[in-house]
């Protein structure tokens, strides 16, 4: 779960990482009031896209009137489909130098890693490889002062700055660990006359650890349909095409979408209803898909934990209650295959043995 900048900065403040003084506002008027209080300010749209600066979502203002004008302009902007609901109005800080600092998870090493560079303030992908210091952290000992000193030596920072970074890095690690973060990024980490200040905050919390953080607000980038799917505990992603796809298992669902494209079709969605779903859950998944108005329905079941008879029964039940008018291509093999087919055949529904045939048939049905 990605956190808005202001929430990330609240966390930083809790862990004693300096952030600029600021106010979170929801109206143009409030933006003016915040500027009256703070003096020269920077106004930042609170959206989750990383490209908000380039899209005009950040502005400076020296007077309350100017702040109101800029706030009004930013409230009107749309960022990758998302409107700005809140603005962060912060005191303008005096920046002498911009650094990059982040903690994230290195999947191949299975450990946390510090990323640090003297080239802060720019798009992290544009930082030259040799200018980005990577330091894997052994999570059994955590982030020690010597690591911070060594990272500083490799970055080539001055002695004064090193002292500040050695104080700051363990705080960032502590937050990263305790808050179950996947990413805690400060870009830029600004050197000001008063010391280091986190001028921005990009924090992502591990979705699977949210149960340990009941106090954090829940933020979603999902569409209404995707949210409904989440309630039903289905892995669902909306796509652009017209063939609705339902399969069991993430890998095989992806492979089914790939195969649809391979044969010239376009999938309308990714829907993995998981392993071992019961009739109720399978029916709900089907109903959700039918509600999206696809042209063709493609069901690809390779039953391991998932039982073919359960899927067949769910299909027959939904057909009886809601009516399934659109053409269906049904592949059904694996656990309790013959029972499943029997249920479907009674209703006059035939199935395929191979995934290949079922996908090709589905694509033909759209034509």
């Amino acid at each position, binding site marked *: 779960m990605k956190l808005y900048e202001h929430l990330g900065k609240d966390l930083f403040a809790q862990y004693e990482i300096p952030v600029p003084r600021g106010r979170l506002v929801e109206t143009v008027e409030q933006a003016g009031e915040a500027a009256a209080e703070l003096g020269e300010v920077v106004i930042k749209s609170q959206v989750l896209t990383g490209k908000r600066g380039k899209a005009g979502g950040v502005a400076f203002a020296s007077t309350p009137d100017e702040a109101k004008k800029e706030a009004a302009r930013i409230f009107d902007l749309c960022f990758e489909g998302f409107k700005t609901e809140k603005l962060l109005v912060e005191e303008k800080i005096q920046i002498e130098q911009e650094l990059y600092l982040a903690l994230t998870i290195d999947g191949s090493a299975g450990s946390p890693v510090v990323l640090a560079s003297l080239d802060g303030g720019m798009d992290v992908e544009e930082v030259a490889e040799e200018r980005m210091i990577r330091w894997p952290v052994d*999570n059994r000992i955590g982030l020690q002062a010597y690591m911070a000193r060594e990272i500083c030596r490799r970055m080539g920072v001055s002695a004064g700055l090193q002292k500040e970074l050695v104080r700051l890095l363990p705080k960032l690690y502590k937050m990263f*660990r305790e808050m179950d973060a996947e990413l805690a990024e400060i870009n830029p980490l600004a050197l000001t006359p008063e010391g280091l200040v986190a001028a921005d905050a990009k924090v992502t919390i591990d979705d699977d650890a949210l149960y340990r953080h009941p106090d954090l607000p829940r933020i979603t980038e999902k569409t209404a349909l995707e949210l409904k799917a989440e309630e039903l505990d289905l892995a669902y992603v909306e796509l652009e095409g017209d063939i609705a796809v339902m399969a069991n298992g993430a*890998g095989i*669902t992806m492979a089914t979408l790939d195969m649809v494209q391979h044969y010239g079709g376009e999938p309308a969605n990714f829907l993995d209803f998981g392993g071992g779903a019961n009739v109720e859950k399978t029916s709900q998944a089907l109903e959700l898909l039918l509600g999206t108005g696809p042209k063709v329905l493609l069901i690809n079941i390779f*039953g*391991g934990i998932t039982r073919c008879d359960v899927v067949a029964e769910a299909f027959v039940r939904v057909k009886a209650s809601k009516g399934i008018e659109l053409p269906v291509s049904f592949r059904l093999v694996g656990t309790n295959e013959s029972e499943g087919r029997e249920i479907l055949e009674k209703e006059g529904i035939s199935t395929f043995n191979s995934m290949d045939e079922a996908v090709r048939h589905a694509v033909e049905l759209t034509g």
Partner: protein
Amino acid sequence: MAIYIDQDTRVLVQGITGRQGSFHTAQMLEYGTKIVGGVSPGKGGQVVEGVPVFDSTFEALEKQSAEASILFMPAPFAKDAALEALDAGLKILVLIPESIALHDAMEIMSYARQNDAVVVGPNTFGLISSGSSKIGIMPHRYFIPGPVGVVSRSGTLCYEIVGNLTENKIGTTTVVGLGGDRVVGLHFIDVLKKFETDPATEAVILVGEIGGSSEEEAAAYISASMSKPVVAYLAGRSAPPGKRMGHAGAIIERGRGTFDSKVKALSEAGVKVADLPTAISPLIKAALGKA
């Protein structure tokens, strides 16, 4: 021959009294896996599918020895159980649960490294040495003995591919599920090294997907040190960037871990990359010299 496990591997089932744990204990016993005990704190003294249940891994190991453990429990309890198993001296852990928190997974992995133990998963179907032992939840009728090693990040897709091999009368030595999460114990490269030195394995199938850099690292190893032929299939060609496609690992971010970069790396390493899951059997036949 096979890798990691064989008919003599003695296995504990942690979380044996749960619905999944007891069901899969019966399935594994049916396949021939040597399950010597179950563990469920507070349920010691019970018997599940003829297997004695103990209160702790330590207690189970006082009664008889074991090398491996398979874990069935809700994700929030997995870390404690895994660390207990490692502390008690088990050397192979199969972590079935999905949605284990990343920081929990990282702690498990670093403790496993310290103890020279192998962790399969989390979010895996386990591993199976065809015809002799399975420590996992895969439907075992598709797994017949033969000369092909298989290593996969996803479950059902792997069954699909092994099922297709079986239809074509091609069997497997060992099939390993790495798991779909971002932090997992085994990576392609670890399993490829084992297959390379396993005399029974003549060719290898790698089933990958978008996200992460595991396939690219495998390609570097294959190109430098692997003599056996490798055939690959990769899922996620059609996935839009930035969206999680069910597997936490399968996310394309910032242009890394893309389908194209993986295909390119593997092809350059001499790996035949199949267009479709069904195209694997002919490629593997050719690799085995049976075309």
